[in-house]
């Protein structure tokens, strides 16, 4: 892609977090450092349902949505929780520590 570059997500996003959105969904927020980078990342189209499917080892249909949210220069991704919050086998009741693999992710800015 002409004029595109690849960067590590943690170098362009000041906030990368995960959290329950209710007991059955897990939601991720990537808040970019500035609006221009946010727009480039959206254009680069690296953050997709397919990427989350690969990264977290889940079916694409379990990635419910990828929504760019310009007012906060953020991309929001929501997936099915592996199990309802707090049920047997739970590892993270609040869902607040599922973001780690995103930090070193390489994304395209276009």
């Amino acid at each position: 892609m002409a004029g595109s570059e690849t960067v590590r997500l943690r170098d362009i996003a000041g906030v990368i977090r995960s959290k329950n959105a209710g007991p059955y969904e897990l939601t991720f927020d990537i808040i970019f450092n500035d609006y221009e980078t946010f727009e480039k990342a959206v254009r680069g189209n690296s953050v997709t349902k397919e990427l989350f499917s690969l990264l977290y080892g889940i079916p694409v249909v379990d990635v419910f949505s990828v929504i760019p949210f310009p007012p906060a220069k953020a991309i929001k991704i929501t997936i099915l929780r592996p199990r309802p919050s707090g049920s047997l086998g739970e590892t993270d009741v609040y869902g607040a520590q599922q973001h780690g693999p995103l930090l070193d992710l390489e994304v395209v800015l276009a």
Partner: protein
Amino acid sequence: MEEMRLLAPTAILGYGFPLESFKRGMEANPHVIGVDAGSTDPGPYYLGKGKSFTDRTAVKRDLRIILEAASAAGIPVVIGSAGGSGGLVHVDWNEAIVEELASELNLSFKLARIDAEFSQEYVLDKLNRGEITPLPGCPVLNEEDVRQSVRIVGQMGIEPVQKALAAGAQVIVAGRAYDPVCFAALPVMKGFDPGLALHLGKILECAAIAATPGSGRDCMLGILRKDHFLIRPTNKTRRCTTESVAAHSLYEKSDPFHLHGPGGSLDLTGTRYTQVDEETVKVTGTRFVEAPYSIKLEAARKTGYRAVSIAGTRDPVMIEKIEEIITGVKDNVNDNFNLDGRFFLHFHLYGYRGVMGELEPVRSKAHELGIVMEAVAPSQEEANTILSFARSTMLHYGYPGRISTAGNLAFPYSPSDFEAGEVFEFSIYHLLQNIDPVSPFKIKYEEIGGLG
């Protein structure tokens, strides 16, 4: 009325707030103090067990300051999702604290409690009528789910709170409620735009979390006017920025543009954020889109009793073979007690997919592993037995290639095993359709204190 000022002292009743911030908030002459006390975030236990996830002393500390100031200023206090989960016992718990404080502080006021619990029969009837639908990610509800639910709560909208306010209630202890309700009920009753009022309530229910630096333990002030609202923290060390306020609509939601609630949804596609001064943000354009009235139901059921043991290993051979060792231990437990799967035995391995489980893309192991063993069984005694047996079996398990033959586990504690008590899981997280906004939520009034 030109504007209405709403004060949010803290994100969750019991999370606290600096006195100075609260004083500055009161200096703005708020019309109401709202506190949302609830969340499903701490998991199903608190709803199922009927306990608060916040500490009684901490809740009483917050309420003492709030009730005293509100009483002096003559403004109402609205507590939403009392006791954390908003069931009858949770409301009882919070109401008792309010009454205790009224007596200690010699306050008199009209108290309203609003219940938000639903009977199994009511929910089964609704289920049979096809008026209960699953929320995203949640299975279709069946009769067994309802029968097994120990406590069913429904998130009330603004209407029951408005009824209590109209009846002159000065302190309202409401059961499970949609988060913004404790703030939005009064202004919408006074004719303010529901879209703006609910959006403001959405931000205020987390208090200063939407400021920067954010905090759940600090106060936020909302100023609602005809066609916009202003939002600012009352602590001078924080500020609201367009980004911090906009980013808040991402928090714990699946879609930042459409926030669903009782009777409709908030449409944020036309919302604009403007920086007014150093610490204040102006918000316009949020719309409330009416929909057939529905509320969210939540319930938990008991799955058994848990016993837990914590250990570690630093043996490279053991770590390499940890999966087959766990399988072997589980086989031994099954062989010894013939429990036919009537228990759950699990090993959390910190240093190997401990935090992310099946979502973890990294499959390498750390040089030492933390092992949290847990057994869940129909009774505490059975859970203790299974855990104890699994722990001793793992300690002395003779795996192939074993070099260290004195013991496989390092225990930080004696005793090594802990009873963790009852275990619950969510059994209902569904939408209840075709419901009256007020009548299912019973309101009781009580005159507290006074000349009596």
